[in-house]
């Protein structure tokens, strides 16, 4: 049995995207900047992809900038707003404690350049409170950046409410929508989003390509200097096959979104119910306000990496926020941000379901996780101490 349950990490390429990319590489290999027909044909393909992507999020095509992925888009949006803010003496940024590292590390860098950063609490349920965003905004705030949906615990943020707050206070609002673009319906107009980052490989598109939406009139400075591509905001010959693949994958994802959301929500809730039967376990993040395929758990008395390796042996690909999987001594900052203590955060498991997963997969995952957790607990000194009362159960 082979079950891919790590769709938040990446997704299998859509056949429609592969076909579109193959055609593009064979026939539309011209440089969109060239004036002859082959170049102009490539330019046409590029602009068609831009229009398709723009329409999905209710943006104008001129507000879409192609990038190498979500991280680049995050970097560019945050740096642009910061640079414009600094010119006006505004050097305060509001964000959250559980952002992706593409955001957090950019903010850390800005701190060394004189910026002040307020990281908002995300509370036990993993959801930012719009009133706390409002309270954090100061006269010198140049940007609010809050992710659309969290990559580890899948919680969906009140983006529309945060957008309204930022609009009322006239502060630019960026959202890292890498996990949300595709699975969720996004409307940058209704939600008052000024900058939005997205990545193709999270919605069955190719890796190494993404886009940044930047509302007309907001500051946008290039990270990469050179030619006049992307209206002088992103130099370098466009990754046309990647862009075409991204547009095709997004189109397909949007077409099947409603049915897929309904189907995945049932699978997700069954998986949550099944894993909840494991004693001394807990779901991470709000049970309902989460991405349709996201299930994140902590199991007391075990460590996440050994759990992942044993699940891999059973054919299940999953992920964990344990220190051993992060390559550092600390477990995931997301789990710590929602108040999980180190001891518990080490025993985390993230399962993210997607297009290929079936109800049978879910039953197999439940049975496998139950087996593996029981096995690891059988020789865990922590579990022994918890059982004997020497340590107190947290979950």
């Amino acid at each position: 049995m082979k079950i891919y349950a790590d769709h938040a990490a990446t997704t299998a390429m859509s056949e429609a995207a592969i076909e579109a990319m193959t055609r593009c590489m064979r026939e539309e290999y011209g440089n969109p900047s060239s004036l002859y027909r082959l170049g102009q044909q490539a330019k046409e393909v590029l602009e068609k992809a831009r229009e398709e992507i723009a329409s999905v999020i209710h943006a104008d095509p001129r507000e879409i900038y192609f990038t190498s992925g979500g991280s680049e888009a995050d970097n560019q949006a945050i740096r642009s707003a910061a640079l414009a803010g600094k010119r006006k003496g505004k050097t305060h940024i509001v964000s959250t404690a559980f952002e992706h590292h593409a955001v957090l590390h950019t903010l850390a860098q800005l701190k060394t350049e004189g910026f002040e950063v307020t990281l908002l609490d995300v509370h036990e349920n993993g959801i930012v409170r719009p009133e706390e965003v409002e309270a954090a905004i100061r006269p010198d705030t140049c940007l609010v950046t809050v992710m659309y949906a969290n990559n580890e615990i899948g919680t969906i943020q009140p983006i529309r409410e945060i957008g309204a707050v930022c609009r009322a206070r006239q502060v630019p609002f960026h959202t890292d929508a890498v996990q949300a673009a595709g699975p969720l319906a996004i409307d940058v107009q209704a939600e008052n989003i000024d900058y939005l980052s997205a990545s193709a490989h999270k919605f069955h598109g190719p890796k190494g390509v993404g886009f940044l939406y930047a509302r007309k009139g907001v500051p946008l400075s290039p990270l990469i200097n050179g030619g006049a591509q992307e209206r002088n905001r992103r130099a370098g010959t466009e990754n046309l096959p990647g862009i075409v693949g991204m547009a095709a994958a997004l189109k397909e994802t949007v077409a099947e979104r409603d049915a897929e959301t309904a189907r995945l929500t049932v699978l997700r809730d069954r998986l949550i119910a099944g894993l909840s039967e494991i004693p001394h376990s807990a779901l991470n993040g709000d049970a309902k306000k989460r991405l349709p395929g996201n299930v994140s758990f902590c199991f007391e008395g075990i460590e996440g990496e050994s759990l992942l390796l044993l699940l891999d042996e059973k054919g299940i690909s999953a992920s964990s926020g344990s220190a051993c999987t992060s390559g550092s001594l600390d477990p995931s900052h997301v789990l710590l941000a929602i108040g999980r203590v180190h001891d518990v955060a080490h025993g985390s498991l993230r399962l993210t379901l997607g297009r290929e997963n079936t109800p049978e997969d879910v039953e197999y995952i439940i049975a496998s996780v139950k087996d593996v957790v029981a096995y690891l607990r059988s020789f865990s000194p922590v579990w022994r101490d918890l059982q004997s009362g020497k340590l107190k159960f947290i979950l």
Partner: protein
Amino acid sequence: MALYSEKVMDHFLHPRNVGVIEDADAVGEVGNAKCGDIMKMYLKIRDGIVVDVKFETFGCGSAIASSSMATEMIKGKPLSEVRKLTNQAVTEALDGLPAHKIHCSVLAEEAIHSALEDYERRQAGAETT
């Protein structure tokens, strides 16, 4: 390409000497749950020889594999030899560990040394009473 060597995976998937010795002559425990690794070693010692050894580990794959390998390396060995066990020897026996996992082999060495200290304490206690 895998994360770990075949040896590590073998000892992780089929750990040797797992469990508890209820009437152990020495017990060593190192690490803490906050860091994500705890190892506990139980030794049975007769005439200066480790006649039996069991372990319990809370930790990642390489922590479990290091514990398993370390127990195999000291079982049936005289204490003089057990004292000389190093984390390098455990790592080598496992055909290497990724750089950020070397601390797991250190933990195995420390768990055994902690058990030996416990044994010496118990011996000293027995002599004085």
